[in-house]
């Protein structure tokens, strides 16, 4: 395994080490692992204050950059008495969140990026997401989860779209329900085992399961808790029982917030699910695997079938991201190291693809001042060649075609399913993937094959387009060098999956 970025990381650490040494004296060692999140909270407050008078967006940018540097120079350690742990797994997801966060800030220049509260909420949510992926205790996880979710309820309502409050209300109400179920699940787990720490929990579960899951009532209670966790964390991920809010909220929210929801909070949900299933309940794998298989199949089918019926691009993308999470669940259902690594890789690639796609559609949408439908895309290749080409690449990536990283992510997911003998699940996934061409190709058809009604050039804002360019370059580059990310994904998976 060669981890491509390691030399770069070492170089940056070496250059900055004098400053780091100086600063470390002022930081309590117990906080060290959570410094990225704490820094973001600090910058959020600064952005709020600055926003009273000036444009706070530069503060947010600096915040994200500083946190990235912190991530690089600080050793990955645990903090707050082991409640939050930075390991290979959480670092992988933190980088996803930071990358998405940076892209979202670039896209925020389009709309409402100059407002203090917007920046404050966004950065607070970033901090929450980072804490979610590092949390190793159910209570800490819950707190972090709320820190991540609450700002997004407000952010979705802040959108210029007329239906924004509708979408936000739906999101909020269903989010509350998910939270309640989560607390219920935590209470059940605590009631049965008296534990909330995930690693301790795993040994307790092992004892309970060793007597056979069919025998003890404790096992049944834990299984109910597992189902509740899948529902409540899956709510954010947008998988089967809790997917209904996704299209409404994604299509009405501010596009930057949508890309944040799709790119980052989804991934935080994935990481929470992985932590709970693969760390705490790993012994019970045979009990939850059928559940995840069912969730995965239903999610894929629902996402793909409903995406086909959409006329608005935002809604289509929302449904397609539901379907993508269905594919991701295949990796969890496989439950092996390869499967989890495939899921992580898919999480990364999906973050790039979907963030790019949402930002692009949002940019067009702001330019046209209405929801983008297929008809608005007609002849985009003549009106805005660059945007159209990028859109084509992103759609092909989502469809899993070669020359894009989306090809590898699907390939490895299906491979992981075949590895454990679930070739039928891989086949269902592949058929879904073929089915999904129905709507991805429609975008290409409108962009490239239909003449525009109004052939005048469409001038798009340059900073968000730059963000999309970054995504597209990433998507293509990681086709040629999937190893650059895959190695880290495998490393992250190896860290948590006990063979």
């Amino acid at each position, binding site marked *: 395994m060669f981890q491509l970025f390691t030399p770069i990381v070492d170089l940056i650490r070496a250059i900055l080490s004098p400053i780091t040494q100086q600063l470390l004296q002022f930081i309590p060692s117990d906080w060290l692992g959570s410094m990225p999140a704490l820094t973001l909270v600090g910058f959020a407050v600064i952005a709020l204050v600055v926003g009273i008078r000036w444009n706070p967006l530069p503060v947010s940018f600096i915040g994200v950059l500083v946190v990235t540097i912190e991530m690089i120079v600080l050793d990955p350690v645990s903090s707050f008495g082991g409640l939050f742990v930075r390991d290979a797994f959480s670092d992988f997801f933190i980088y996803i969140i930071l990358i998405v966060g940076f892209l979202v800030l670039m896209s925020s220049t389009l709309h409402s990026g100059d407002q203090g509260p917007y920046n404050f909420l966004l950065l607070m949510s970033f901090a929450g997401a980072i804490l979610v992926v590092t949390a190793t205790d159910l209570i800490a996880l819950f707190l972090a989860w709320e820190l991540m979710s609450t700002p997004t309820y407000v952010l979705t309502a802040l959108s210029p779209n007329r239906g924004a409050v509708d979408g936000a209300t739906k999101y909020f109400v269903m989010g509350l329900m998910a939270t309640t179920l989560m607390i219920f699940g935590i209470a059940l787990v605590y009631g049965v085992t008296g534990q909330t720490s995930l690693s301790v929990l795993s040994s307790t579960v092992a004892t309970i399961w060793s007597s056979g899951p069919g025998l003890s009532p404790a096992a049944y209670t834990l299984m109910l808790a597992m189902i509740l966790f899948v529902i409540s964390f899956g709510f954010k991920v947008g998988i089967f029982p809790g997917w209904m809010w996704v299209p409404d909220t994604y299509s009405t929210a501010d596009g930057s917030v949508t890309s944040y929801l799709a790119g980052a909070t989804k991934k935080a949900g994935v990481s929470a699910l992985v932590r709970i299933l693969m760390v705490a309940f790993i012994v019970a794998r045979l009990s939850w695997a059928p559940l995840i298989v069912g969730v995965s199949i239903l999610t894929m089918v629902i996402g793909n079938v409903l995406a086909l019926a959409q006329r608005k691009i935002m809604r289509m993308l929302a449904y397609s991201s539901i379907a993508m999470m269905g594919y991701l669940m295949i990796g969890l259902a496989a439950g*092996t190291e390869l499967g989890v690594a495939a899921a992580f890789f898919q999480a990364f690639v999906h973050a790039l693809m979907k963030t790019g796609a949402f930002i692009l559609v949002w940019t067009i949408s702001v330019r046209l001042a209405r929801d983008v439908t297929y008809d608005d895309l007609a002849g985009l290749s003549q009106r805005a060649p660059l945007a159209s080409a990028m859109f084509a690449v992103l759609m092909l990536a989502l469809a899993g075609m070669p020359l894009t990283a989306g090809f590898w992510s699907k390939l490895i997911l299906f491979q992981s399913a075949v590895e454990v003998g679930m070739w039928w699940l891989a*086949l269902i996934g*592949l058929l879904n993937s073929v089915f999904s061409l129905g709507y991805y190709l429609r975008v290409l058809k409108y962009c490239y094959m239909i003449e525009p009604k109004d052939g005048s050039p469409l001038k798009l804002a340059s900073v968000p387009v730059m963000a999309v360019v970054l995504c597209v370059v990433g998507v293509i580059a990681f086709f040629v060098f999937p190893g650059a990310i895959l190695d880290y994904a495998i490393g992250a998976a190896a860290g948590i999956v006990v063979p």
Partner: protein
Amino acid sequence: MQILFAQQIIDMLPLGILPFMLILPLIASVIAYAVRGRAARILTLTVTVTELLLSFVLAMAINPAIISGDPNAGMKYLWNFVMGQIVSGGGSTELQIALGVDGISVAMIVLSNFVVMIATISSNHIHKSEGLYYALMLLLQVGLIGVFMSLDLIGFFIFWELVLIPMFFIIGRWGEEGCQHAAIKFFIYTHLGSAVMLVAFFVLYFVAVPHTFDMIALRSMGLPPMVQLGFALAVFMGAGVKLPVWPLHNWLPWAHVKAPTPGSVILAGILLKMGGYGFIRLGVWMVPDAFARLSIPLAVLAVFTCIYAAFTAMAQTDLKSMVAYTSINHMAWVLLGVAIGTATALQGAVYMMVSHGVIISVMFIVAGQLKYSAGSREIPQVKGLMVQAPRLASVFIFASFATFGLPGLSGFIAEALILFGSVKVYVWTALITLGVFLTVGYILWTLNRIVFSDANPEKPVTEAPWSDLIAPLITLIPVVILGVWPDLLLGLVSPVVSFIVGGVP
């Protein structure tokens, strides 16, 4: 034919000849998109001609003979590029593109470079977004020759799928009325076949010990018979859609008819051959035992497809549509050759692919030209071609004769080889000659209606300009050469075929 000079040229190229041939059009594709307009056309012509010359050099340099016990199974000019590694469970798997060629691959590479060049020459009527068009054309070339070079299942699949993307745009953007629907149908249909094939690739990967996607290793591994059989059926799904075989052929008439002329040329000229090549490389080359078991059903399907397509072709009134069904008819011969699997039949199958690739290109160019010259492709509408457009008519007559396999032209040798091979094994496959009989019938009938009829003064036909006839005339050269000098191609193919028939070394 090993010519020292050719080998010296190959040694001079950076990277090795195979990756060089892949990267050249890839880079040119980006440049063509950037420069646009007429410059893009000139660039594409230059690159495709260069590619053709390179593939001739390759054909001249390669030594097709295979020594028994060769660990590379006769593959030459090996090269690989590791894109990523999957390390899990103690083992590690490379996700890589591995390239290498043997005689059959070289023959197909020469064919595809030739057909792409012809398609580029015949693109002179394309004036809409030329930059994008030529960029896609070059990208298509990368995918096509990549398929014929790949020695790794994952790399093979990447190129196999890569072909769909530019083809989709070419059909949908530059095609005729209703082409968008045809493009989407083409894409989804072929992608579905590939999806089934991909699952089979994975199953094969996990059955193999040690786990590998390497085709040479898988070939010499001696896989369990049932796995081989399942894999063969999956290949039938994947390659059968491309070929196409009877129940899976539905996309073909749509895509061929609605595509622009160069698109049809490439579709019929090479894309179908990817199916035939898939059958040979993934089928009889990799899992020969399974194909021996499937011999009878495949042969029955081939004979049926041939006759069925011939009848359907007879019923078409659109010339392009008729030519499209003729392709199905001829590709059934390839399937028959593969199903029989003896040395003669397999040689015939490869010969058929090459010869059909060039002949059908002319037919499609003529059909496209008819639209410009006569304003219609409907067979009953066009009359008196011989009187009014003798040049176009001559090319058309010549190509038609080649299509139904006139002795002295390449199609005859292909059909004869396959028939000699197959009748020796199953006498009843002689039924396929009914297909030949019908083909001669409907083609002569078509000639009768279009070429040798009295001119209709209300619908005059203008003569095709020489600039439009360059492409078909060049294409007819190999038809004649291969018709009188079969050893030119068989010299490349026969060592590989006897290697396949000889079984696993």
